């Protein structure tokens, strides 16, 4: 059981100033699975996600209690470099945020800084990442063009490709399709399905059908607490807690 969990969160509290956004969260994330985090907005889903790759460090005046282990290392331990954590735990944001650079340079930006220099290596990486993100066929002839000229859905897939080019072990996705049209959304769901062979995906979503379609495990959050966490099929067919049932049947939220 132990080594199937790539990340474990133990008794975590999180504070923005004096406001407690997460209360006593304990959960484990399984390797090579898709875990969905659902719950009404403001319940702390993004906060938890950003705790996992230490993005919350960037916000002043915040505090973490409890422990989070990634492959057995306490990521909030003193000797841990958050930069290294973020390299191994990638992130895709709600709004596509490509750099104002070419498509090619968006993807090679990270790997170059990691020391990948050879042109052929970089080109192979670009092709591989774009294929994984189901974007290759659309952009293979316009790699030199500014990423800003792509459509929203393409930009989001580019951001996914950019994250994948760093070869992360985990990919965090914060409502990656909430700003996209149905076709782009379908493409991203499809690529998530394919990706889980290679890495672990933790996705926040507002869309319950999406959670049901793509995830293996689902955690339901409410007011900063993890209310219920189980196999997705179970959460959606036979929830154990009344709040979960109310939420997935649309009775609140």
């Amino acid at each position, binding site marked *: 059981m132990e080594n199937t969990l790539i990340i474990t969160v133990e008794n975590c509290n999180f504070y923005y100033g004096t406001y407690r956004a997460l209360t006593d969260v304990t959960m484990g994330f399984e390797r090579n699975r898709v875990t969905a985090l659902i719950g009404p907005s403001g319940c702390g889903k993004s906060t938890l996600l950003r705790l996992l790759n230490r*993005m919350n460090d960037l916000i002043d005046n915040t505090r973490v209690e409890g422990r989070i282990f990634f492959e057995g290392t306490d990521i909030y331990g003193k000797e841990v470099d958050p930069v290294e*954590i973020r390299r191994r735990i*990638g*992130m895709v944001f709600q709004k596509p*945020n490509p750099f*104002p650079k070419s498509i090619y340079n968006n993807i090679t*930006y990270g790997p170059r800084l990691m020391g990948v220099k050879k042109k052929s290596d970089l080109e192979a990486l670009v092709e591989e990442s774009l294929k994984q993100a189901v974007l290759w066929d659309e952009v293979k002839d316009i790699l030199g063009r500014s990423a*800003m000229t792509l459509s929203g859905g393409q930009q989001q897939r580019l951001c996914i490709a950019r*994250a994948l080019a*760093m070869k992360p072990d985990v990919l965090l996705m914060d409502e990656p399709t909430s700003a996209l049209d149905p076709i782009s959304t379908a493409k991203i769901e499809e690529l998530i399905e394919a990706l889980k062979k290679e890495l672990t995906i933790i996705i926040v979503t507002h869309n319950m059908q999406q959670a049901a379609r793509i995830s293996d495990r689902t955690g339901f959050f409410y007011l900063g607490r993890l209310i219920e966490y189980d196999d997705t099929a179970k959460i959606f067919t036979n929830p154990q807690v009344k709040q979960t049932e109310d939420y997935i049947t649309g009775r609140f939220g």
Partner: protein
Amino acid sequence: MTADPFRITLRRRYRSERIFFLTLRLAVLLIGLVMLAIFGYIFANGYRAISWEFLTTPPSDSMTKGGIMPAIVGTFYLTVGAVAFALPIGVACAVYLTEYARQGTFVRLLRIGINCLAGVPSVVFGLFGLGFFVVFLKFGSSILSGALTLGALILPTIITAAEEAIKAVPQTFREASLALGVSKWRTVSRIVLPTALPGILTGSILGIGRAAGETAPIMFTAAAFFTARLPSSIFDEVMALPYHVYVLATAGTAIEETRPLQYGTVLVLAALVAGINLFAVLIRGYMRRGKRW
């Protein structure tokens, strides 16, 4: 037809709006006219003095004849030197203030100080330059001292402009880079600064114009009354356009006779500043290609 109160208020509002816009238009027109008058006046009085010889020879006959070439060269060196000094330091300062410093009382005080510095009369900078660069650091009256003094003068402008430009870089760009496992310093140097650079240049353009045009800061630190030869090192004194105008217009024996030379010099100075600005605008446009977000 009965009086419709709604109609009446509407009409009243249109009228006040029209008056408001008319006032704005008049203000713009007035500014335009003043600008046109100044440039027209300078041009009308100065263009006859301009010739190839005027631009390429040093003054002669106790500066009542000849050209202004050493002053053009001097102003060019001083301005470029000032920017070369102030731009890196100003940008570094802005990066520190916006990206690294903990926003608190200390940073607030620092900002107030910088804003005060921007309002300090330029002659104060001139005296500072004399005391510090010329005498204390023993740079003498030289291009180096003058450029450093002018640099100090435009530093607040550049810091403020750079801060604005850096703050305008979307937070999402920083997040995207940091989330890839790129360090903060590299995020700043590879993403934030390149994105902010066009904006930084825009702000610096103001500084360039100011550095080229100021007289007081270079009077004690760099400017020579007259020297026919061109500087051979940064420790040489130089002539400078604004100071040359000042000298011709106040200190010569033939103030009236040299009026055309004075206007000619002013025209060249205005053209030089316009030229440097144009250059900066062109680089900015070039750098902005494909960088809209």
